[in-house]
Every structure is written in structure tokens, then in C-alpha cells.
């Protein structure tokens, strides 16, 4: 791609570093910014820079926060004895969008995978164990991706907290809502059969 301005070229190169953005999309975004008022663009870059500069991670659950404690942990209306363990901040947002969960979170920052150089020490597992001890948690809900590394992480944490009187659960796995049985893969279908539900509970949607 040929540019008549190195300023333009630099901006395009920076945008193209973002995930899912290629050179052409980057150019489209930059040209869009070029059409805006100077003040608007300054506001835009200031918002981005400030987000990165000032954002904090919650001391308690490692979710993103404006202060030392995130808004979820600070909300006294939420159940303080319920912790949902997730891999990333995106998972927190996904579960919050369901509006079905009224407990707290714990963001691990990844899952255990020695192949990728990620061991328990790279994650917030120790902090989680300390939390459970201090906060008298009654239930720990694992909401991790259903794969082998997810299982490794669950088993590992479960071992670490065996001594505490906390109930450990994991989200259900099975046929997707609105899915067709015919197209479900055999493993999912087999698992759904193994963990089938009494109809009263199914109909009540609980």
C-alpha cells in the first residue's frame, strides 16, 4: 500500500496491529478519523489512553475496576458467599449479560497449560484459595471452557481447597438452546443423556 503521508501510514500501521484488523480495514478507520474534527479525534485518543493508564484490576476478583475494588465486589446487594471462577474478563461480561447470577467472580487470567508455559503460578489461583479461606465462601462455581485444560484447572483448584467447607460446582454442559439434536456431536449428546434432568425442573426452567 502506497501512502502520500507518513503520518497516515504510521496511523494505519498502528491500527493494523489490533486483532482482526487488516491493512484495508485499518485504512478505512483512519480515513474516518481524518474526516472528524480535530477535537473529536483528540477526545477519542485521550479516552483510549486514559482507559489504559488509569484502569485497575480489582484486588479481590481481578476483574477490571475504576478503583481498588470493582463495582461487582463493592455491591453489597450481591451474595458475598458465592464465587464464580472464570478464565477472562470477557467471561464476566458474558455471564453478567444473562442477569441470572447474583454472586461474585474470580478472574483467573487464563487456564493451566504447561504446553503454553502457563502454570498455576501465572494465574490468580493462590489469591482465590486465600479468598475462600477468608470470605467463608459457601459455593464455588466453575464457568470454564469445556476442554482438557479447563478440566485440569478445575481439578487442580479443587485439590487446593479440599480442606475448606465449600461446595464446588460447574456449569452444565449439553445441547445448546435452540439446537437440533441431529446436529449435536456425539460427545455432547452422550453427556446430555448422562446428566439428564427431571422434567419438573426442566419445565420450571430452573
Amino acid at each position: 500500500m502506497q501512502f502520500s503521508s507518513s503520518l497516515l501510514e504510521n496511523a494505519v500501521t498502528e491500527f493494523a496491529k489490533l486483532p482482526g484488523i487488516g491493512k484495508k480495514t485499518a485504512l478505512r478507520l483512519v480515513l474516518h478519523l481524518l474526516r472528524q474534527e480535530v477535537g473529536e479525534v483528540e477526545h477519542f485518543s485521550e479516552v483510549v489512553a486514559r482507559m489504559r493508564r488509569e484502569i485497575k484490576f480489582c484486588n479481590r476478583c481481578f476483574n477490571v475496576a475504576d478503583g481498588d475494588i470493582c463495582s461487582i465486589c463493592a455491591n453489597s446487594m450481591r451474595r458475598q458467599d458465592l464465587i464464580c471462577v472464570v478464565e477472562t474478563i470477557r467471561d464476566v461480561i458474558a455471564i453478567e449479560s444473562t442477569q441470572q447470577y447474583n454472586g461474585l467472580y474470580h478472574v483467573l487470567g487464563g487456564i493451566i497449560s504447561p504446553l503454553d508455559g502457563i502454570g498455576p503460578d501465572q494465574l490468580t489461583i493462590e489469591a482465590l484459595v486465600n479468598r475462600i479461606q477468608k470470605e467463608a465462601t459457601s459455593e464455588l462455581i466453575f464457568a470454564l471452557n469445556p476442554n482438557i485444560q479447563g478440566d485440569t484447572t478445575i481439578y487442580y483448584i479443587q485439590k487446593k481447597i479440599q480442606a475448606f467447607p465449600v461446595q464446588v460446582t460447574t456449569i452444565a454442559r449439553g445441547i445448546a438452546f435452540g439446537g437440533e439434536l441431529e446436529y449435536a456431536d456425539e460427545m455432547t449428546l452422550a453427556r446430555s443423556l448422562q446428566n439428564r434432568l427431571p422434567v419438573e425442573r426442566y419445565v420450571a426452567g430452573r
Partner: protein
Amino acid sequence: MELSTQIGPALSRQPKRLSVQQLDSFAAGRLSCSPMLFFRAISLLQFKNYTNRAFEFNEAVTGICGNNGQGKTNLLDALHYLCFTKSYFSRTDGHAVQEGQKGFRIEGRVSLNEKQEKAVCVLRETGKKEFSVNDQPYDKFSHHIGRYPCVIIAPDDAVLVTGGSEERRKFIDSLLSQADATYLQHLISYTKILQQRNSLLKSFAETGQRNFALLDVLDEQLLKPGQYIFEKRKDFLISFLPAVRHTYHEIAQQPEDLRLVYESQLLENNLAECLQASRQKDLYAARTTAGPHRDELEISLGAQPFKQIASQGQRKSLLFALKLTEMDVLKEEKGFPPLLLLDDVFEKLDESRISNLLQRVCRDNAGQVFITDTNEERLKKHLDDLAIAHQIITLR
């Protein structure tokens, strides 16, 4: 809540073997109509030496003839792609792309139990591979394995007899995976966890920090798939190995003291005990030294290892015995004969052996067969002599 019913196809412990007479009558009844699994056509785009070419198959037996380098084996490999979603000859899909091109497409028209299917394998320019049957793409390619059961015999397969234990495990795994989808899923899980475990052991050795709690967890995760793989192999080999021996004697047509023995650490202790016992060794070696990934199929002739004393002919006979018995097992498990791909198998075989082999795979088996040969005359003559209906594709 426990389910008592079995999920997934289970291998019967003792595959029933059809007698020769039964096989004959079975074959006679089948010859008139096409087999339950039949590849009707295949079209290739930018695949190896084929720029854009289509083939149609009308007979149960297809001979592919032509000089060296004309693409006989490539055509077989394309069929292999449709059965296993990958090449038999190279590890990377990139090697299957025609030189100077990016990406390829293989499309096959297949009839399976009298239903027409369209199977498509595409390698995109980006290097991403897609596989679909009837325009329904697979999320996981492993779900396709076993839909079109297939046995291939190629010249390089001699390593199955002469090579390391890995080759024989691969052979058994390929067979069991086609017969039992659960086996394949457990095998995939086992391999993934094993990689994690080895990687962890390596990091122990490098950093000096040893997180035994995590090692314990990985050990526990290995148990279920590892134990399943072992039990399945054990149950299966009990009937498979004598059948291979029987086929070998049929081919050799003289008594030889061939011994096939399944060796596994798990025959004496369960996997949990094996892992526990070899932990110190594992820490020292920085990899996992016990488990079904170390299983071996020992082959000996008399008291000596087969690969050390066997002649070329004996090696070839054993290779055929293994593959032909695989064919019988798949036929038994699936209820119809698998696709058979024979690559250049006549080399170093005398005329009567060629005839015996063709008799067995083309008549008795009654499945679809593809045979490559540089010598068109020879192939034609043998097939005509046996009165086997066939089609010859000549590549030039």
C-alpha cells in the same frame, strides 16, 4: 444418575469370522450390485499433479495404470483424504497442493447404504482445511473417521513390520478408531494430556520448581482415557492376533512359527500404579515413561525377532496378513466391506501370489477396490483370468 445403556458403538469381543464358503456365497450375491460403500466419482483441483480433473468409477474394481510419476498414488491419496481427512503419505496438507498454487479441493460422490453423499475436502489459500459431507461442515474432523472405513496398503508400509513400535500402535489405533468413535476420542484426550504432562516435566527439569499437585491432577486425568485405550486394545488383540497368524499362514502356505504378542506395562499393573511407580524415572527423564503410549506388538519368528531374520517375502506376507485381517475386522464391525486402496503391491510377488491376493481382495471381500500398477497388461490379465469385472484408468 447413571445410565445403564451403552452409548457409542462397542466392539464385540470376539469378532465372528466368516468361513470361506460363507464368504464365497456372500461375494456371489454381492457381485451383481454395487457395495454398500462405493465411491462413484472424484474431482480434483490443484491436488498434487492434478490441475483440474475428474474421474468416474463404475466397477467395484478399478485399476489405475500408467508410468512412474503420472499420479497413480496421488489419486489413491485423494481417496484417502476423503476417508481420513488427511494424506496417507505426508504429514502436512501443504505438500498435497500443486506446485505454484495455493490450496486444493477434492470432491467425491459417494454412495453409502444406498444414499448418495457429497464429501468435500478443501484447503483454503490461508492454509485452513475444511471438510464437509452433504455441505454440512465438520466442527471436528475426528467425527468423520469411520464414516468411510478404508484400508490402504502401500510399499512404505513395510515399516509396520520392520520399524519401531510407534508404527504398530498407529496401525492398531487407526483400526480401532474407525471401528469405535469413543476410542478415537479417548485417544485424542490421552495424547493432549500426555503432551501437557511431558511439558510440565520438562519445566520441572528446567526451573527446578516442582509442582507435584499439578502433576497429580494430570495423572488422574490420564487414567480414564489411558485405561480405556488399554482395555480396548487388549480385548481386541485377543481375537485379532490369532486371526493375523491364520491369514499369514494362508498367504505363506507353509507352517511357520510366527508369534505375535501384545506387550503393555498395563497388563501387570493399572495405569495409576504404573504412573506412580515410574514417577522418579519420569522426573529424571523429563517425559512420561509409562502408559499405553509405550505399548508394543512384538513379532517373532521362532525365538528370534521377526524383523531381524525375516526375508523380504515373509515381511510382505506379514504386512498383507495384518492389513487383510484389518479389512475383515472392519467389515465385521461396520456391516459392509471397507474401501481398499492397493498401491503398487504386486512388486516382488510371483504370479500365483498376485492371483491369490486378487482373489481374496476383489472376490471374497466384495468391497470397492482401487489398485495401482505400472504394468497394465499384467493387471488386466490377472483380473480377466479371475473373471472380475473391472475398469482400467490409464494415466499419461
